[in-house]
């Protein structure tokens, strides 16, 4: 029961972007089209699940005083691995995500989950928490990416839907990200009020 809860709390109830409001920097930066959003979600999912797994595994031998530097070493190792693997096998995606891959190191979702969850829970629960949180992050990021790409560029996943000349360019610029995130948060709060 608690395993299931650890898994699905990250998806909606504690959605990292729309409820906990952490990791907003990459969300704003790479959600201007759906393809980038999906690629970023995949990279973050890999790093988050692996770092939760390793942190939970080493939590008994990690001294309290130096846990943060150790988390950062674990996280940056996985980020660098995913950077190399993307460069080797999906160079186009790596080209599109550019500087944001190395920046996963400082994505507060990952350090936040290591500190708040994986350091205090067994391996299996931590992996499930990582999967759930990644799915919540992907859900938020891809929804924002799709909305912004449709309204701002008239296409979705690069497939043209209508003439981009009538699209609202502001949606693929930074203000569009803030507007979209705000509306989605309001929508989620409204839904929650209704449930209660």
């Amino acid at each position, binding site marked *: 029961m608690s395993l299931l809860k650890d898994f699905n709390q990250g998806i909606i109830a504690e959605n990292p972007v729309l409820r906990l409001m952490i990791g907003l920097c990459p969300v704003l930066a790479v959600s*201007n089209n759906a393809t980038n959003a999906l690629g970023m979600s995949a990279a973050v999912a890999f790093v988050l699940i692996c770092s939760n797994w390793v942190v939970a595994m080493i939590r008994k*031998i*990690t*001294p309290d*005083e*130096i846990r943060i*530097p*150790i988390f950062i*070493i*674990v996280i*940056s*190792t996985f980020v*660098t*691995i995913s950077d*190399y*693997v993307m*460069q*080797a*096998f999906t*160079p186009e995606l790596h080209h599109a995500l550019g500087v944001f891959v190395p920046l996963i190191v400082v994505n507060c979702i990952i350090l936040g989950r290591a500190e708040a969850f994986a350091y205090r829970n067994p391996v299996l629960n931590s992996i499930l928490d990582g999967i759930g949180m990644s799915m919540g992050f992907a859900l938020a990021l891809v929804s924002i990416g799709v909305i912004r790409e449709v309204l*701002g*560029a008239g296409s979705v996943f690069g497939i043209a839907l209508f003439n981009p000349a009538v699209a609202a*360019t502001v949606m*693929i*610029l930074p203000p569009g990200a803030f507007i979209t995130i705000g509306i989605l948060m309001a929508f989620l709060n409204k839904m929650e009020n209704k449930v209660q």
Partner: protein
Amino acid sequence: MGKILKLAFILAVFCIISAGSLAFVYMFTQPKIDLNRKIAYDLSVKEVLPQPGKAVSVSPRGYSGPINMLVGVDRLGKLIGIMILNQTETPGLGANVSRPIFLNQFIGKTDKDPIEPKIDIDAITGATISSRAVCSGVKQALEKAREAK
């Protein structure tokens, strides 16, 4: 003192494990990464040089960073191909400089042409600086190609 040494030792062990695993991944991916870069570069050179000539790479300063571009010039000094390799211009505005409708205007230009927005080039609406940057990059490339001859 003993405590500090112990903590430093543990941290060092973690660093060594991390460095070791990175070296391992690097060993396997590096040849593939180099190959990808070479393929990508060769492909772009081929694209800007449909006929024999010289490919010149230039990086004029755009609105929010350098615009790395590759320009193909034939033996008579005429531009026969142009492509943007890398740019960080504003999406939806300046980033449109990599669209063919803008870039194709440069085909056939030589260093005797003005290559200026409003004179012989239609700039992109809302992206004067990016359009001008590409123009100056083209000029630079044509000059470089002439000097290299």
